């Protein structure tokens, strides 16, 4: 799970070129809700499953876990450590992989990307670090007989892929609408176990993560100038012809 700045708000960068988490409210990344939904559906399909959520982030990242727990599931782990701040995808995936190994797993479900960084590489990095198959970007998934099968819509082809468990799976926003937490769910979530870990618990040196461990650096982050006000005309019967003239003048027609 990732706790991210609200994508509908005006998001900004700090002077260090990092996401400003102070200026806007954060919430559970919308794309991760689809992973929660798939986990719940697998458990509801009759598989004997225990669902545990995991997030890395500052204190309020716990809110993302509470939201997921309110949708369903059993327990959650929050990894929080000042030294993690400023981590890139490599640092984040190291922390996640160690926490996953500590807990033990059959299936790691992820959203296809976070709605803030939008790199979409953490699932693949987790699979690489854990040494298990990655069934990524799937719109449809089936778990049976120790395997996970998914349908993946690529740029030029539809591909069906299968991995043996344990595996890492990432699901797209086409995998199925995520449910809303019920009032009962929200109340129940308050009682579900939520464990907090730091880097020492995971045996990770501070230098491997955070800004020190990061392998790339932002040089500049500048707000794009607003687009200059365009010409907006009301259609008075010749709107299409006017548009044709505009496109012709710009050499598009």
């Amino acid at each position, binding site marked *: 799970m990732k706790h991210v700045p609200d994508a509908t708000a005006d*998001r900004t960068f700090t002077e260090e070129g990092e996401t400003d988490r102070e200026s806007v409210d954060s919430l559970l990344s919308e794309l991760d809700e689809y992973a929660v939904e798939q986990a719940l559906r697998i458990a509801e399909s009759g598989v004997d499953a225990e669902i545990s959520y995991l997030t890395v982030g500052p204190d309020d990242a716990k809110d993302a876990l509470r939201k997921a727990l309110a949708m369903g599931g059993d327990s959650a782990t929050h990894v929080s450590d000042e030294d993690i701040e400023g981590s890139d995808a490599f640092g984040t995936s190291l922390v996640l992989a160690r926490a996953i190994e500590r807990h033990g797993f059959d299936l790691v479900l992820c959203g296809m990307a976070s709605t803030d960084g939008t*790199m979409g590489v953490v699932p693949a990095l987790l699979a690489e670090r854990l040494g298990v198959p*990655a069934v990524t970007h799937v719109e449809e998934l089936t778990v049976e007989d120790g395997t996970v099968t998914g349908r993946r819509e690529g740029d030029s082809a539809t591909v069906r892929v299968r991995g043996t468990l344990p595996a890492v799976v990432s699901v797209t926003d086409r995998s199925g609408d995520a449910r809303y937490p019920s009032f009962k769910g929200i109340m129940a979530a308050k009682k579900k176990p939520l464990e907090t870990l730091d880097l020492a618990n995971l045996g990770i040196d501070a230098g491997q993560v955070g800004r020190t461990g990061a392998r790339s650096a932002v040089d500049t*982050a500048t707000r*794009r100038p607003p687009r200059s006000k365009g010409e907006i005309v009301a259609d008075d019967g010749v709107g299409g012809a006017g548009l044709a003239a505009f496109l012709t003048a710009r050499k598009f027609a």
Partner: protein
Amino acid sequence: MAEILVLVDHTDGVVRKPTLELLTLARRLGEPSAVFLGRDADSATEALGRYGAHKVYVVDAPEVDELLVTPAVDALTQIAENTGPAAILLPSNPDGKETAARVALRLESGLITDAVDIVVGGNGPVTEQSAFAATYQVTAHVTRGIPVITVKPNAAAPEPAPVTPEIEKWDVTFGPASAAAKVLSRSPRERGDRPELTEADVVVSGGRGVNGAENFAVIERVADTLGAAVGASRAAVDAGWYPHSHQVGQTGTQVSPQLYLAAGISGAIQHRAGMQTSKTIVAVNKDQDAPIFELADYGVVGDLFQVLPQLVEEIERRRS
């Protein structure tokens, strides 16, 4: 001159346009070498040479088709370990990004995804990216190892620079198949006469205002008149009016064409995130308060079923 590795994106040996863009960008940084996985390398070599690939590393093995992503990771990592390139460039699609991340992890190198431009800097390549629904422009560089960079389509116009490439066949040692996802089947998407969404110079998209699958013919007619690809908003896709593969937006395809024409699309933040970097934006919408008009270089407040047919008619009249 420093060697730059470029992973080739192709369908049965037909090199896709984003690869030609990568070769063009790679020439700014050094001497491009293409890494080709699969059969039909011969037919691709000509195109790769035309855009400046001095070398083509060819990896032809059954694993390439049988496993997802990992064969490309094994290949690129092993070639990079042997050749010590100054950078590795890949296309910014799901496969390209996942390959890039794993290669960077194995090479203990840094990664930048979704670059829209690359220039030479004092400490290696400097990339430009769009962030937060394209409201920010970010420049960045890799601080460790061989820079691994994925580049979005349309980041550069492909420029020919013909050379005759040297072909080098590579025997890659593939990792255990048990740690990989196996490909059960691949069904190529039927390609129409229209350009692909990611590669098109012009995209014409329809949204909620199109109000029905059959009405998308109006959008397609405009697209065909302008030689454009057809896009659709999430609302139109969710309603089942147009296939998901055409969805433009944060979670669909992100496009950056020369011209983006949005018809019947209000311009929710998720849609804007997918098209805001288009060079020229045109909007047609009944609602004068639609947020899409804030982005538009030219907007018509009106009924798309009146405006678009007239647009087509007028263009055809001007042409004849």
